[in-house]
């Protein structure tokens, strides 16, 4: 489920990559990402609206695999 204001979309291949997942967890200051037991990426839905639009996650993952959507712009 997206937040009220923000949604984060991660491409499947990036979400399955444990190295990318680890990096995303590390760069996000508001804990939008977590790792599942198998190391794959999980988006923490209750934290989505805390996103500060810093784009560090977008920069940390391969180009085009992470997208931050502002739901108030649609």
């Amino acid at each position, binding site marked *: 489920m997206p937040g009220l204001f923000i949604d984060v979309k991660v491409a499947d291949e990036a979400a399955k990559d444990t190295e990318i997942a680890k990096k995303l967890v590390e760069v996000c*200051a*508001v804990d939008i990402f977590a790792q599942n037991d198998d190391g794959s990426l999980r988006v923490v839905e209750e934290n989505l609206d805390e996103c*500060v639009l*810093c784009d560090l996650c977008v920069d940390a993952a391969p180009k085009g695999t992470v997208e931050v959507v502002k739901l108030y712009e649609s």
Partner: protein
Amino acid sequence: MSIFITKDTTFIIQGITGREAVNLTRENLDYGAKIIGGVTPGRRGRDVYGVPVYDSVKQIAEAHGTPDGSIVSVPPRFTRDAVFEALENGIKLIVIVTENIPRGQVAQMVELANLRGARIIGPNCLGIISPDEAKMGGMGGPAANTRQAYTKGPIGVMSRSGGMTTEIASTLTAAGLGQSTCVSIGGDAIVGTTYAELMPYFEADSETQAIAIYSEPGGRMEAELAEWVKTNNSRLPIVAFMAGRFMDEMQGMRFGHAGTIVEGKEDTTSEKIERMEAAGISVAERIEEIPDLLRKRMAEAS
């Protein structure tokens, strides 16, 4: 001209990987700051927007030379040690952003700074800005917002409130009055640099033609300023805005910054207004009155 900082001032950020410090780093870099490094213990080798992170101030000094200044943005429990670390590594200008530090610890930092010939701005402040020249701290936020609020000109601004520094600068800018340097001195009962201690710097700065200050209940800082103005026969007209007038009727309750606590009669707004007016400082009731009052006072002074 500006006081304390120029385009060439180098500084570091202690606690650079924290949520607010990351913002500060980006905002200051975008405004042209020369940030040569950051400190977060255990994070050596990382970088924040291209600024290299080290474990200690000493490592930065060894790699890049001693910086001119440091912004300290670490949790309250670690602030004293961070400031001591900066001072003992030869840094001479320290902006402390952190709030909720007990006064005893602030006093220790200030005492050591005095011994080392260094200056502390804050704690609980947004730092310094000389518009179009440099900024060191969170004043104005992102660079684009900062340029919107702060413009170069003849007014020096000093404020116990970080937020109100920007409000005042923005009001001055809208009225066509730019600023020479604005200093957010911090909202605590003990701060590294008071209004009266800033006055000699503004006095010596040829660009500065008048001063605007934000003031509030609590402490003796306005009384100290009034005294300084009288004994030094200051060339600079001063306009003060006084907030928190309602607190005079509600003594013993806590509002605003830690430093606004009214501990005696001298700390009330009515007492402060009286003292400042007696020293020739004009007191505004609304922010939007400040530009006209400044213009009037500057015309009288010239």
